[in-house]
């Protein structure tokens, strides 16, 4: 069985790299770590797929899992959380253009609210909203039950809802 052509791989990477990068940055303690982790993860998944001569591209969740595993191996320094608290919401997302419904103030409030989420809840929201994964897939990545994941997600949204009360009302 022949390996997948590199064009398909390239399309797959271009399509998904931003969300992988977002997750890698969220899981790592520095920009450089995030880049290394993402590169190693993509390489590992590519190697695994080509070695098994699979005719299908791997699921994007496989890269998220690899990123999580490698981020743990890179070590979580004690200052990571603090650093993340400082940079989290302002660096991980692009500044939105005026084609969005809400303005700069509302966007800032949303980012502030995201910054206030606990780590596990923020991870769940990231994988669900921007990773496009199902709760079951997130549960597999985080190695916990689907009930835990849905509870985390609900708690995160409740917290955001509370923080943003009245901000997005029609």
């Amino acid at each position: 069985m022949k390996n997948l052509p590199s064009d398909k791989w390239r399309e797959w990477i271009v399509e998904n790299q931003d969300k992988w990068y977002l997750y890698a940055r969220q899981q790592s303690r520095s920009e450089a770590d995030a880049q290394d982790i993402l590169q190693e993860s993509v390489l590992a998944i590519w190697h695994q797929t080509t070695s098994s001569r699979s005719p299908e591209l791997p699921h994007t969740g496989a890269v998220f899992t690899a990123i999580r595993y490698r981020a743990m191996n890179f070590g979580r320094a004690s200052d990571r959380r603090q650093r993340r608290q400082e940079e989290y919401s302002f660096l991980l997302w692009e500044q939105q253009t005026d084609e969005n419904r809400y303005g700069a103030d509302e966007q800032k409030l949303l980012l502030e609210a995201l910054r206030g989420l606990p780590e596990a809840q923020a991870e769940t929201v990231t994988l669900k909203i921007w990773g496009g994964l199902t709760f079951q897939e997130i549960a597999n990545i985080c190695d916990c039950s689907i009930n835990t994941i849905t509870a985390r997600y609900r708690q995160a949204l409740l917290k955001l809802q509370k923080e943003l009360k009245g901000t997005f009302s029609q």
Partner: protein
Amino acid sequence: MKENHANNDFSFRELEEQLQKLKPAATPPELSAKLLQVVSSERSLYPYSLKKLFFRPSFIPWAAAALLALAFIGGHKLWVSSPREQIAETVSTIEFSLPSLQDIKGQAIEVLKVSRLIASSYANQDAAISFFKSINKEQFAQLPSTKLPPTTWSVAPELPPLSPKQEAALRKADLVVEALAAGAPTIPTLALASTTFLPKTKNVE
């Protein structure tokens, strides 16, 4: 309570829509280029892989020389120079021990030095490779300089005589055999050492 729950669900959907409007920051171009390079070039992926290293075109003559020399050693050590009883005794009492790093380094350099001589005696790599593939123990036995007892080789007298160039190269191959007999380094060691110490063979037509 029910109404409150319904309101929350509606708000959740609204909130999810707002969140989805946030786009993840774009991957830096240099990182993106590295990721694309991962899947577009196998060679760039595993610069450290011995497997890939071994099959690099520039390394083929050295790889062929090393394999040939190891094949000679196998035949020489196990089936040719030792009586059958001695082989049996040796096999039964054989002890495996790891050579020191210094030993391996010294032997690898020595062997590769000689292998380089062999390959450089040919103007192009293709001719060198075909020659290495064509050598067999019968031809080796025809060399008057060989130190292996001719009676132990299955000499094929119908083989054409070797050309002076082939004979000269085989004499050098004999040196390779001797060097390897002193304690052959492993093929990965040869591969690593060759890329470290040896220049590329020029492909001159």
